[in-house]
């Protein structure tokens, strides 16, 4: 655990007093302290291209009164700096009246260990794995023209000090290992990318030469794409594979169910609580409590323990995801969804691991039922317009389906749909729910946070596929 005060002229007691004084008439707020270390080691073009280490320390001080948030941060933890921030907050909130007295719930559960993944594996052994990846892929096939592999590791220690002196802490490890490979054959170039990760040590993910299966998967995707034909254009049936394609759920549904957009009534879902928003059999949860997952958190960035929040149950909209501010204004409770990228940012309600649960049909049944459509196995990024509800995501591995059979691979195409209605078009839910491999980062209001997704195979009766072939 970082001691934020031992190298500073700011004593813990002083900090507690400044926090209590500043927030005494506010609805909410806290001092958030953060010490993070991160590393990035990249092999590219046959060489170790970069080896970066970063260390970041700072605080963010927040005061909330009614709907107004005043925020000030600094990367200097000192008495003067905290006092300046306190003055800045007070000058913004000129007429404060606050009474919110919601205690932070307590929990002893932890969803990952207090480890520092960066220190747990030597730089030499990381370099060795990256070089093995490069040699393995380049020897595997002459078509391999470029290999990029990288390790990303992070160790983040946070402390939240609330009015009255209550202190809540968490240590958050996070790692990611990625391989990208480019193949060239008959004048065509295609890439394949695959990665794994979560909140454990590098070696937990790399045991049994697991780096080889990451290489194989990246290579397989690139090989499939070398044979791809132009994608069709227009409305058709779409079968989504299990796991990572659940970023559709994240974009189409997830963002629209975040508390802030619904309090402000700018989400297409704001007036649909308790109503049917999905086909029967569709249940979606947002879960921060799965051990060691990328999107899991022991506590959120306001100190609230995370939970498994049921968003949609058997087609009916049940809950939004809430931080303390939006929960208070919507007269409900925080779901432990208050997150921030780091101390430079205010808290917003965000997703953790967003999952559609299994039904009882098989992927085979889905494919067989489709006369003309596409089968999407993997995606790149996605995006949503919260207000109109329209969302997109980009296929990185997809096939055409003709007369109930999987046909040729097709080129990357954007799929576009309408969030509030897409889940009503889900006509089959598979029995094969799978978690993604641990690679997702969600962006909102300029803040990126690690998230997870999961889903079984699903059949969507109607979606627009943005290919080039009419």
């Amino acid at each position: 655990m970082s001691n934020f005060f031992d190298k500073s002229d700011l004593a813990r007691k002083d900090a507690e007093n400044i926090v209590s004084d500043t927030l005494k008439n506010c609805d909410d707020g806290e001092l958030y302290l953060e010490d993070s270390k991160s590393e990035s080691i990249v092999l590219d073009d046959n060489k170790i291209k970069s080896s970066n280490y970063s260390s970041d320390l700072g605080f963010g001080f927040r005061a909330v009164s009614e709907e107004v948030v005043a925020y000030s941060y600094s990367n200097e933890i000192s008495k003067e700096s905290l006092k300046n921030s306190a003055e800045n907050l007070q000058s913004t909130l000129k007429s404060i009246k606050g009474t919110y007295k919601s205690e932070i719930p307590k929990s002893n559960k932890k969803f990952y260990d207090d480890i520092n993944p960066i220190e747990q594996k030597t730089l030499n052994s990381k370099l060795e794995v990256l070089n093995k990846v490069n040699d393995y892929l380049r020897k595997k096939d002459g078509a391999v023209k470029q290999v990029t592999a990288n390790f990303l590791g992070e160790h983040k220690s946070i402390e939240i000090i609330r009015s009255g002196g209550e202190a809540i802490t968490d240590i958050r490890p996070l790692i990611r290992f990625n391989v990208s490979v480019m193949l060239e054959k008959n004048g065509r170039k295609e890439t394949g990318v695959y990665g794994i990760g979560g909140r454990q040590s590098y070696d937990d993910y790399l045991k049994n030469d697991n780096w080889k299966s990451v290489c194989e998967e990246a290579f397989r995707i690139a090989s499939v794409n070398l044979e791809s034909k132009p994608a069709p254009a227009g409305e058709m049936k779409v079968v989504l594979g299990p796991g990572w394609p659940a970023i559709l759920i994240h974009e189409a549904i997830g963002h629209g169910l975040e508390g802030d957009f619904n309090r402000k009534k700018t989400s297409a879902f704001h007036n649909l609580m308790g109503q049917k928003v999905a086909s029967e059999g569709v249940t979606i949860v947002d879960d921060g409590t799965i051990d060691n997952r990328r999107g899991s958190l022991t506590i959120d960035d306001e100190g609230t323990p995370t939970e498994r929040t049921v968003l949609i149950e058997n087609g009916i909209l049940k809950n939004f995801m809430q931080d303390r501010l939006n929960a208070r204004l919507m007269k409900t409770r925080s779901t432990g969804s208050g997150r921030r990228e780091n101390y430079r940012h205010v808290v917003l309600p965000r997703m953790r691991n967003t999952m559609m649960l299994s039904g009882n049909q098989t992927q085979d049944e889905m494919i067989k039922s489709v006369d003309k459509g596409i089968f999407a196995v993997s995606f790149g990024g996605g995006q949503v317009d919260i207000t109109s509800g329209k969302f997109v995501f980009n296929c990185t591995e997809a096939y055409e389906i003709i007369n109930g059979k999987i046909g040729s691979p097709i080129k990357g195409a954007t799929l576009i749909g309408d969030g509030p209605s897409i889940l009503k078009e889900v006509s089959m839910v598979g029995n094969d729910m799978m978690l993604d491999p641990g690679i997702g980062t969600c962006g909102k209001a300029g803040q990126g946070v690690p998230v997870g997704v999961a889903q079984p195979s699903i059949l969507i009766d109607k979606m627009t596929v943005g290919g080039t072939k009419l």
Partner: protein
Amino acid sequence: MIKDQDFLKAKAVYCLDVAKKIGASDASVTIGHSISETVNFRNKNLDESNRSDGLAFSIDTYIGKKKSSISSSNLLNENLDILIEKCYETTKITPEDEFNSLPDKNLLADKLKDLNIYDNTHIDNDKKIHYLKELENIASEDKKIINTESSFTEKKTNFILANTDGFCSGYKTSSFTTSCVAVAKDENSMERDYEYSSKRYLDDIKDPQTLGKLASYQTIRKLSPKKIGSDKLSVIFDKRIAKGMLSAFASAISSSAIARGTSFLKDKINEQIFSNSINIIDKPDIIKGLGSKNFDSEGIKSGTLNLVKEGVLKNYLVDTYNGKKLNLQSNGRSGGTTNLYFENGKQSYDELLKTNSKCIYITETIGHGSNLVTGDYSVGATGFFVEDGEFKYPINEITIAGNFKDMFKNIFLANDLDFEYSTNSPTMMIEGMTVAGK
């Protein structure tokens, strides 16, 4: 107050001295400071105020051809000592890379031009609030507008870049940015749109009335959109998204993508990649320019580049490392383009709209559908159906797709270029794209 040059220089010199003392053969360090103050409004009331004050330090240490880097926000000398030592230790065990080196001394910037990119004016929060009140009063006048969110940010930065070859330089910049996002609703739909203004000088930003009116108008006109059928059509890109084509082009000609072989524009120097009416320029010394700079992130002087002349690709964007790989001299583009733009076309905006009896006019795209290895492009889009030069009705939930290689050859530009961003395009038409809808 933003830290002055002397403070940053002293830190930079300290870091270089430490690196040299412990055994680094070369080093390059950047020390930066930035202060920004933002006020956010929502529905005519104060919503959030945000002040940030941050120092940043990053260093590359070299031992011959070995290189490693470290960055931190903690500039206490005691912390810098520990980190530079750690960086040096990492450098020792990092393999050699023959292309690693400091930039060529002869190319370093010597004299700094005054580009008028720092306005010392400070606008206090009460004045920001006054601006935002006026803005939101206008923006929410129409009853169809059900939500407005606007913000005003003042940002000041200063930095020093120094290396062990004696380079030591930096300068202040400022920006003032205001924006308004409106949400409109009718019986059929709810839509969102925005307007924004970002300038180096406070006096140059759009007045609140203009900004509010535009945000409101652009949002309301999107209400009750239709979905059109799939077709091959000409697509017109509004200026605010046409610049995205230039950004994709810039990524594809970065020396890193070229050296790695992962760009569809590799080996295309001196080839016709656009129609012969197209010229693309990257000009770093535009007075008050949002992308203006005296030198790139390595200290190399940036000069004007004619990237595309009469449709022919003339230059890549070259930094020192990738330049060595490609046998090219750096042209001062480590860190990317500066003020990048298409030169004006010959037709007016109205003439462009009337080129075809029907076309679509796109005001927003969503998704990350550009594949720079293959050139394939496919994104979600929102806009208007245009017939005989007139906007007929709003459209959404469609995609537009093509391949950059074909799209670039079919670009036609209007003559309405202005410099609202660091990357700028006149209104653009691309013929023969695939539109997928119903």
